[in-house]
């Protein structure tokens, strides 16, 4: 009697298309295997990366995780204005970090290891923007001196985030980037798009490959672990397609290249570092199981239902407490009382003026 024998015998359902989660209903899709760590409610989670990472940060807060924000607006400022000026979108006000090189250079700049030649891009209507976060400040900074002061505060916040974090969640977004040929500084947006002006002799295009992306991530993680040996890493790849490609080809071809590079790089990075996991948000959004339903009508924007699926899966595997019952969630920052108190005093003072101004 012969017994069938091959390497797939006895393997779990998730390894087979027909039986893997999602096959009989997209909502059940759960491509996470074995997390190497959990995130406790009191753990300080620092987020960074492409625009998809903004969703991650927002949902972490809603789910009771401790999104560690080290660059807050002054307490005087109202929430609506804090949001408008991008405080709390990420742990510090670095804006979107689309490429691994951007992350590495942010860390190098924050620790004084790299000083790019470009420091400020003038705006047509006056003022300047930060070449490395050109959309962080609506209307820009009034002058280079103000930008320099804000940048100094920003770098201090970045250092604090790195040194105090328990978990670093980074979302790889793009491989295409514009660089300064003189020193290799990488910009999040092409010069001229949101400030500055494009100069062929200075600015060049670069499409990062797997080796470069892995090397940059390794260097960035090394910098973080050097300062924070217990740091745990979660790497994700943004499912959002490119908005534009600088290459003379269809944007979908550029998108598939970019995402393939990032996905392979993520795999290699996570294999190389302990306490470092790949979280498959890219797979959840783009899987054939969901048949594109998580993309908006433009085929690019990820709809909230998709983000919720990602975060539901994330919480299931990485959370240690029910999402809504996080005992260690810090209470929301109370509204500042200084201004209200001073306005009350001024009002009383002004009423008093009617009877006491004798001069």
């Amino acid at each position: 009697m012969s017994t069938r024998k091959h390497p797939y015998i006895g393997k779990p359902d998730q390894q087979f298309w027909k039986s893997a989660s999602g096959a009989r209903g997209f909502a059940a899709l759960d491509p996470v295997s074995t997390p190497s760590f959990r995130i406790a409610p009191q753990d300080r989670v620092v987020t960074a990366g492409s625009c998809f990472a903004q969703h991650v940060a927002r949902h972490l807060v809603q789910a009771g995780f401790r999104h560690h924000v080290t660059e807050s607006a002054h307490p005087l400022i109202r929430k609506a204005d804090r949001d408008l000026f991008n405080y709390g979108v990420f742990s510090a006000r670095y804006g979107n970090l689309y490429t691994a090189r951007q992350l590495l250079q942010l860390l190098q700049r924050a620790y004084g290891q790299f000083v790019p030649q470009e420091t400020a891009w003038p705006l047509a209507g006056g003022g300047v923007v930060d070449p490395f976060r050109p959309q962080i400040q609506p209307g820009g900074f009034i002058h280079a001196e103000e930008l320099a002061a804000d940048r100094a505060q920003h770098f201090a916040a970045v250092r604090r985030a790195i040194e105090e974090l328990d978990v670093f969640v980074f979302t790889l977004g793009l491989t295409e980037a514009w660089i300064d040929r003189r020193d290799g500084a990488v910009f999040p947006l092409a010069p001229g798009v949101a400030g500055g002006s494009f100069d062929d002799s200075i600015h060049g295009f670069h499409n990062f490959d797997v080796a470069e992306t892995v090397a940059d991530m390794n260097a960035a993680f090394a910098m973080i672990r050097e300062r924070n040996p217990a740091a745990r890493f979660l790497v994700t790849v943004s499912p959002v397609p490119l908005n534009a490609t600088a290459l003379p080809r269809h944007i979908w071809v550029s998108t598939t290249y970019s995402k393939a590079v990032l996905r392979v790089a993520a795999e290699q990075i996570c294999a190389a570092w302990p306490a470092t996991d790949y979280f498959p948000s890219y797979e959840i959004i783009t899987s054939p199981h969901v048949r594109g339903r998580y993309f908006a009508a433009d085929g690019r924007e990820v709809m909230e239902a998709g983000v919720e699926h990602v975060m539901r899966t994330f919480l299931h595997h990485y959370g240690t407490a029910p999402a809504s019952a996080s005992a260690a969630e810090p209470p929301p920052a109370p509204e500042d009382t200084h201004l209200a108190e001073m306005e009350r005093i001024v009002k009383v003072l002004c009423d008093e003026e009617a009877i006491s101004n004798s001069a």
Partner: protein
Amino acid sequence: MAERASVAVIGQSHIYALQRGMQPDERFSFTNVTQVSPDWLNEDGMPTPDFLANYDANAHCVAMLAGNFHIAIGLIEHDVRWDFFCDKSTIETADLSRRIIPFGLLYKFFQVSLNVRVLTAATNLRQSFKGRTVFVATPPIIATPEHVRKFPNMFKDKLENGIAPASIRKKLFDLHSRIISEHCEKNDIIYLPPPPESVDGSGCLLKKYWANDPSHANAAYGALLQAQIAKALSL
């Protein structure tokens, strides 16, 4: 002799300097020179019909609204010490040992704070009176902290937090004034900056115009305002 033109004076506490410094004027008749009641505006910044019924609709209008907002923001130190750069101020530097609030953010903060009670209200006053509308700047800051300590009034219990440096308070005054003057320029309202003779080289209020409290000006300043208003309305 020609009939004197009616001038409705509408505003809060800074109005009393004008009231106390008022001199007889052959050309203008200043009416209701007293602080408005808190309910003079509806929530959209529109003067209520009952309020407007107290005034001659053909009059000129002098607005002296909410001049103390910059005082509320900056006279007493916040627990988180802060400063800011201000590009169109006599003081353009900032103390980098403090938290720096970006100017654009602070500008937005002021604009929203002043929007209904001051800016929209001024526009609505402009539309409610057939004469010209003049907006009188809030008095410049009293730079000397000793004066604030001597006459703290309602700030008495807050002095332990410290009085903010005059450089910061001056920039806040400049920002406050700038937002209002920009609004006036866009809305056909005559903006009157502080009388030039009332300020020192830094733009702070000269001692002879100080009232006995941390932020208001006195009758002598009011007399300067009256002359300034009359001149503006005569042009």
